């Protein structure tokens, strides 16, 4: 049995925002098709867009949370990583104040993620030290 379908999405690279269809076969990405009805790209993509699926299944993807122990990054469960962050962050901001924290957000992450990271920085930690690398 082959299960093939396409999913309408937006190119992950430049700010032009071309519409594309990800081709999915048996749960894996196998290709990209340009969207014809998106008025920005009108059925066209550049070479980066055409190959936008290729990095997704790279064997180098990070697959587990990592925590530095004795100088080395080791795989851990989510709970351990999250409670480590919570206790460290609390200790640092309690000792040095909220302005000892800063966050760098990303022009490659979604609106929702950017919104949440700035909300976390401002509302949970209590500092406006947040910026992104979009100037670069």
């Amino acid at each position, binding site marked *: 049995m082959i299960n093939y379908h396409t999913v309408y999405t937006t190119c992950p690279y430049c700010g032009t925002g071309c519409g594309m269809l990800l081709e999915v076969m048996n749960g894996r990405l196998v290709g990209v098709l340009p969207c014809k009805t998106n008025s920005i790209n009108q059925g066209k993509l550049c070479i980066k867009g055409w190959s936008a699926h290729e990095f997704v299944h790279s064997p180098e993807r990070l697959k587990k949370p990592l925590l530095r122990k004795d100088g080395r990054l080791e795989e851990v469960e989510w709970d351990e990583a999250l409670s480590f962050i919570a206790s460290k962050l609390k200790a640092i901001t309690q000792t040095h104040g909220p302005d000892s924290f800063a966050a760098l*957000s990303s022009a490659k992450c979604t609106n929702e993620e950017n919104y949440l990271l700035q909300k976390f920085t401002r509302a949970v930690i209590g500092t406006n030290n947040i910026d992104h690398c979009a100037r670069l």
Partner: protein
Amino acid sequence: MTNSVEELEDAACIMIIGSNTTASHPIVAMHIFRAKEKGAKIIVIDPRKTHIASYADLYLAEKSGTDVAIINGLLHIIIKEGWYDKQFVEERTEGFVELKTLLEEYPPARVAEITGVPEAQLRQAAEMFAKTKQSSIVYCMGITQHTVGVDNVLSLANLSMATGHIGKWASGVNPLRGQNNVQGSTDMAAIPNVLPGYQSLADDAVVSKFEAAWGVTLPRKPGLTLMEIMGAIGTGGIKALYVMGENPAVSDPDIQHVKKALEALELLIVQDIFPTETVALAHVVLPAVSFAERDGTFVTTDRRVQRIRKAIEPIGDTRPGWQIICDVAHAMGAGGFDFASPSEIFAEIASLVPLYAGISYERIAENGIQWPCPTKDAPSTVFLHKDRFSKGLGTFKPVAYKAPAELPDEEYPFILITGRDGFHFHTGSMTRRSKSLTAQINRCYVQIHPLDAKKLKIKAGQMIRLRSRRGAIEVEARITPIVQSGSVFVPFHFAETAANVLTNPALDPVVKIPEYKICAVKLEKAT
């Protein structure tokens, strides 16, 4: 962009300045080529003779970093000749007299001397841009990545307002954003001085609205910018840093300094999809999913809020970025992070950000919507500033030419320009793991003008050591007249020979953008 990408097809004159459009934004270039097919005039202003420059009706080979002088020079001619839009200037702008006074200092002869562009070409460009009915400006990082980045942007605004080429179909000022969600991350206030939707931290009503929604008291003091954060690590102010989806150990200027700063942190949290150079320095790493494994929205360079959609299940034990931030907040015991899906987060955004108030996942199911979209039945705003500017009148801000922070001298005789290659993206963490793209090119290079190559006896393919006051890298020589004699160009996607070892961390005083486009280097043959 004040206009939409596809509107460019209807422009009758397009001035491209500081944008290697065919390499960095190929689909925008497609619309520009279609405009040309319909008879549009193309003016390219760039220190490099880029691919699109070879199709231009007029190419002005400016010296690096002289954009303000060129634009002031064009405005000088336009006003002297009476080619400006008198009605637009009278009805919609203020400060024209001050602009005129400053422009007295930019007669063509002086501008030609500063910029290296002949007077005749300045006149041609001024006439072509001003006298055509629908002219548009397209610009990119060649304008912004300078210590005078803000001045450059202001002078382009002056040019478009004086000629009335703004607030119309196919006519406006159009910055091209380098990464897919530059616009959105700024809209969402992942910046230190405003709240989401560019709402002021100094406005009590705004702050109370957010405090009521989030159930907290908010800090009012503006935060630090990226480069200030990096600086504050060394001196001890910043102890903990949360980096989401970025790779400052490659993307920031003077990276040897940046790496030392990151190493000095008590806590470095990095959330990413690949083991980047920044991940290698982290204390804790949170593995996120890629764009194909999650839902969300991106905003295009023309303010269009579009969807990304989950196509496959998360790979390994990874989680969507939005969920990870909620998990961290929950671990801290914080409320206000109980979201079941990105559409719920988007609904909260729309309830707090007037520009987005009328947008929802239902409305952007098929086509994106361009903000501002204040109500549920408001249409896309295809182009901005139609009958008035958001603040009422547009103000001319006269800006004087200032030289770049670091110019060549005897010891470091070449100008280094950094930028993008057409086959790769940003720090390469995604594109360098894509076999179609690495098959095209997978190592760094330096573009050297044939005259300089001859003088220094450099052959194509030879390894060259580039050295600046901050460090050195070794890359392969490409001999090409794309660059001017006296300048070299290196793309910044290659972490192992990172161009940012060389770059100057001098900043624009207002928005703190580093001067990636100009620093001084010397060339040595690597043995």
